[in-house]
């Protein structure tokens, strides 16, 4: 079973947004939404030692995804290959997963009324093709492959070289998009776009913290009430003529 991962070489990325455009056209992403986009950190440091970096954000297909348990219907699920996917037939567009993602990788597709996000172009990968952003990137900054395959470029970059995950001390859920290049580029990207701790939306909090207990209590109480009456009925026996 493959275990898919992507490495983004921040030294090769020039912020041209080709991947953004390719992805949008491949997946009919409406204006205002994006499955992937290139964000600029802006310049940092003191002249003359200035740095600048591009951070390509997309779904990280995390080892311990926070979006999957947040989904009420199970529309968001993780395949054995590690790809986190959305089953549009089950999605009702409630936004629970959008708030649960530390990387802001999800958006609600307003024309569908359902959530959408990067799925490593799973339908292309199934056919043996590369994700569309990878084939489009003019600088070959995006490298996609199988971490179980020791001869793959991603294996080399992740396990033999220094590609790193965008994890912080507070958010470490095993993202499978790695960042290669100079360490300061990754540091800068992490400082500018640090993953935010996953949030539960208010309806979920209300539901799990007290509303479900209230409903269980109400149903339990009436069930118990009729059970008591029923046992009273059984123990007193039925009469041939009522009243």
């Amino acid at each position, binding site marked *: 079973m493959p275990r898919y991962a992507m490495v983004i070489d921040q030294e090769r990325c020039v912020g041209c947004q080709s991947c953004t455009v390719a992805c949008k056209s491949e997946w009919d992403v409406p204006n205002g939404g994006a499955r992937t986009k290139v964000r600029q950190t802006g310049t940092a440091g003191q002249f003359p030692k200035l740095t600048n970096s591009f951070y390509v954000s997309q779904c990280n297909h995390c080892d311990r995804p926070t979006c999957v348990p947040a*989904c*009420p219907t199970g529309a968001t699920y993780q395949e054995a290959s590690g790809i986190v996917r959305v089953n549009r037939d089950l999605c009702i567009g*409630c936004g629970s997963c959008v708030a649960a993602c530390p990387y802001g990788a999800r958006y609600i597709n307003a024309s569908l009324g359902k959530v959408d996000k990067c799925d490593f172009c799973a339908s292309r990968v199934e056919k043996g093709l590369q994700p569309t952003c990878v084939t489009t990137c003019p600088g070959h900054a995006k490298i996609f492959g199988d971490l179980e395959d020791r001869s793959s470029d991603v294996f080399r970059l992740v396990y033999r070289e220094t590609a790193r995950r965008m994890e912080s001390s507070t958010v470490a859920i095993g993202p499978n998009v790695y960042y290669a290049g100079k360490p300061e580029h990754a540091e800068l990207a992490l400082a500018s776009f640090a993953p935010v701790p996953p949030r539960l939306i208010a309806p979920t909090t209300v539901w799990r913290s007290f509303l*479900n207990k209230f*409903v269980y209590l*109400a149903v339990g*109480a009436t069930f118990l009430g009729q059970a008591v009456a029923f046992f009273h*009925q059984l123990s007193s026996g039925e*009469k041939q003529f009522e009243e």
Partner: protein
Amino acid sequence: MASSTIEVAPLPLTVERAEAMAQRQIKKHHVAIVLLHWFNATSWLLELSTGAGLIVSPYYRFAPVWYLQVMEGIFGSRANMLRFHIAVGLTWITVFLVYAIFGFRNYLRIEVVQHEIGLDNDDVEWLKVRTLRLLGKSQDVLPPQGVYNAGQKMFALLVYGAVPLIMLTGLIMTFHWFGTAIVAWAMVLHFFTVGMVVSGLMIHIYMGAVFPEEKPAFYSMITGMVNELYAYQHHFKWWREVKVQEQAWRERIIEQEKLRAGAAGEPKEPAPSESPSVPKERL
């Protein structure tokens, strides 16, 4: 006053009268209501069983995992189960919409609803005595009740409040109305309102299908009829309403007969003073 011959409070019954009453059937439910009730019951059974299988987030899931797997096995996939849930739900809403439009004059006007399911003092007393009697703590006589007893009224009020919300939140989730935030709240409200109705259903099903004293009520949901003795003992106020109507109906017939006799020029008297003993076998 024709209705003055009908008692205003339940009297101790003689054996002859009780036996005669037990033989006479009076109409409690229109056939449309009987059909609607069982359509509704079937819809609820299907919607509850599939709905429970659709809530899978470990944050608030309540069905055990094996149940989710069984339901998925029955439907082939959870997506199919959701389609089924939506199809049944939309049918349910459509049928009740038709009922609301065509049955409005008969069942849903505010006076009718107020008369049938509004709680009065007798009802409050009834709830107290009923509960104590169920627990074997009292032998008091239950206060006279209208066409629905106080328990049925309470359940009806709960349902009248919850069902429009269940329908609305279901539609919001199905068609993604009003955007993401509203859909998320609709989900919680859907669960909550259904939960409240289910808590009422526990009593409703026991009282309707199992509790011995209300057995005629269960059969009335099949045949539409109850015997008069049951009506007299359990729904006295309603029994009286029926009797008053019956009396009025008799008087109308007698009146018509008199007119016809007058028009035909026959001098024979149809004895109007004997109205209480006019044919018994009507209802």
